[in-house]
């Protein structure tokens, strides 16, 4: 890569830097489009019907990470129903799951689960009969409910990894990122020009990288979290 090259930003989102501080993340429309294509490779493995509704819960500053998921849902021919992943918006999350026939719910956070609990709703009922992509802080709680169909959505600073229908690790875009393991931690380096370059960025996520062929047919490597 020519590391001198940076792309002109379309917008500024945010990520958490190695010191745990919120940091502005300028990103370009090209990055967003490339990420949309990578996420589409994962979405395709579920064979959703076009016209289905998928709820996406996010925070407003997560554009670099989750706007590509929203756009992938739309370009597939599905409808993205939006809610906030903060505890304050759990009421809307519940209302959406009740009123819209959802094929999936993406980005469910521990904050949403806390909010639902405070309102007296049981996740087992709220997320019944749909694909659920849970963030790492909500994954264990939801995965423990046998009736739910739960997959990983792993936040990796400027990137996200998303689990396919085969459920054996979350795929990360192999064209965009050189994904490495350093002392058990996932480390990212960008392979293509971006607005904000990342060299050996320590994600803080403990796990290992699987490069073997996934049963879903997607050649993007997978991240498996340490238990």
């Amino acid at each position: 890569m020519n590391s001198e090259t940076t792309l002109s930003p379309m917008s500024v989102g945010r990520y958490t830097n190695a010191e745990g501080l919120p940091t502005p993340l300028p990103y370009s429309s090209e990055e967003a489009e490339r990420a949309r294509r990578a996420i589409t490779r994962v979405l395709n493995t579920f064979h959703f019907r076009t016209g289905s509704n998928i709820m996406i819960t996010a925070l407003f500053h997560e554009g670099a990470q989750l706007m590509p998921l929203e756009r992938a849902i739309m370009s597939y021919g599905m409808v993205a129903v939006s809610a906030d992943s903060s505890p304050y918006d759990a009421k809307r999350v519940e209302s959406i799951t009740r009123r819209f026939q959802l094929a999936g719910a993406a980005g469910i956070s521990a904050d949403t689960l806390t909010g639902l609990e405070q309102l007296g709703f049981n996740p087992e009922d709220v997320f019944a009969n749909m694909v659920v992509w849970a963030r790492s802080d909500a994954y264990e709680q939801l995965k423990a409910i046998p009736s739910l169909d739960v997959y990983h959505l792993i936040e990796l600073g400027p990137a996200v990894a998303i689990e396919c229908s085969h459920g054996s690790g979350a795929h990360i875009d192999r064209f965009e990122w050189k994904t490495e393991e350093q002392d058990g931690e996932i480390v990212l380096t960008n392979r293509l020009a971006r607005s904000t370059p990342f060299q050996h960025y320590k994600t803080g996520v403990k796990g290992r990288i699987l490069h073997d062929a996934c049963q879903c047919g997607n050649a993007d490597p997978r991240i498996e979290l340490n238990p």
Partner: protein
Amino acid sequence: MAAINDDRFFDADIETMPRDQIEKLQEARILQLVPYVYQRSPLVKSLWNEAGITPDDIRSLADFKAKVPFMDKDMIRDYRDKHDDPFGGLACATAPHLRGVGFTSGTTGDPTPLPRSEDHISLTGLKREMWHMGVRSNDYMTYMLFTFRDGLNADKWLESGMRPIAIQHLPNEIPYFVQVSRQLRPKAMFMLSTPVILTLEQYQKNTGEDLREAFSSYQGAVFGGEPLSPHLRSLVESWGLEIFELSSLGDIATTMECKAHDGMHTWEDLALVEHLDPEKNEPVADGTRGELVVTALADDVGPLIRFRTDDLISFTRQPCTCGRTHGRLKPLGRKGDEMLIQGKSILPIDIFPLIGNVKETSSGLFQLIRPQREADILNLRVGYDQNSLETPTDELAGRLTDLISSKLDIPVNIHLTDNAELLKNGPPNKIPRVTKS
């Protein structure tokens, strides 16, 4: 007609369109919309059938304004509940033309869904406003959407060249907001609300930071959500910011002040604006009080048709000194808050500046006591600050009575209450402006 090439405007052809051309454009859009919504929106079909109207009856803008039945929030909710339709009978399209669903803030009951296509219509107007404030290609603007209700839409600013910095609209984001303002030096601040201003004030006190310096790159700050109190206005101005007030145009688009600060521009290519007598449903004169009724002109996914907003406004179609030709409104309050005192319309907005200018009551805490809409005398509960009291309370009550009855030309009965007592009636620093007793 020569094309307008004027850098003051983001969309000069639209923003400065002569009145007759605006109406021509509206009529063209309405005549396309009428058969479309009748065939596709189940709520529209049922309302029009009930009224005995068909698309054949509507051959002009005038026909539309005279014959098409109104809709309101209750009708949409009723349809939703009766037919188990999340869109309340408003949706005219399915995926893939239907792309996403956002929501109104929904502080009361279930939030109302806002279906959308590839276009985000509410941003169409906002781009004009941000350009007017001074944002140009490659400039940053802080983007703290008041309620996150439209999905992750930062890419929808692309064709304006502006670069939104997405920040959550939450008090605990204030340190980050100040940090980013220094780091990226944005041109516009979108947007402030009462809680955000109060948190900034506290932040300045706690950290001693120079907000005037931190905010020195901003050419304007948008405020919305409720009327701006004189205290908060002077606070924001002390940080060197010019305030542009913003409101919702019945959930179709936004409406915002320009640098003339003489009313908020309504984008009449996006919404047909009607300004009607709330009781008789007839148009009222420019500059008088009427209810805002809107029809979406650029939405083919879930357009509102003659939607009664319950918002009282004053409205003028006089061109603005800024060069724009679209109508301007001033929000006055909610229809359900209006009182008729001996036939004269009184709203909380009439009381606000009067109370705010008296030292003991400058916190601006008051309530109209409204057992019903009409009354012979205005009963007003007013909060006072114990610490700034210099005279007996009955003397203060007398001063307030004289002030309000002379300014508004109505009889007034003042009920004084300690601020702390009055604040028990509502959430922090806010009380209902109208109460039954």
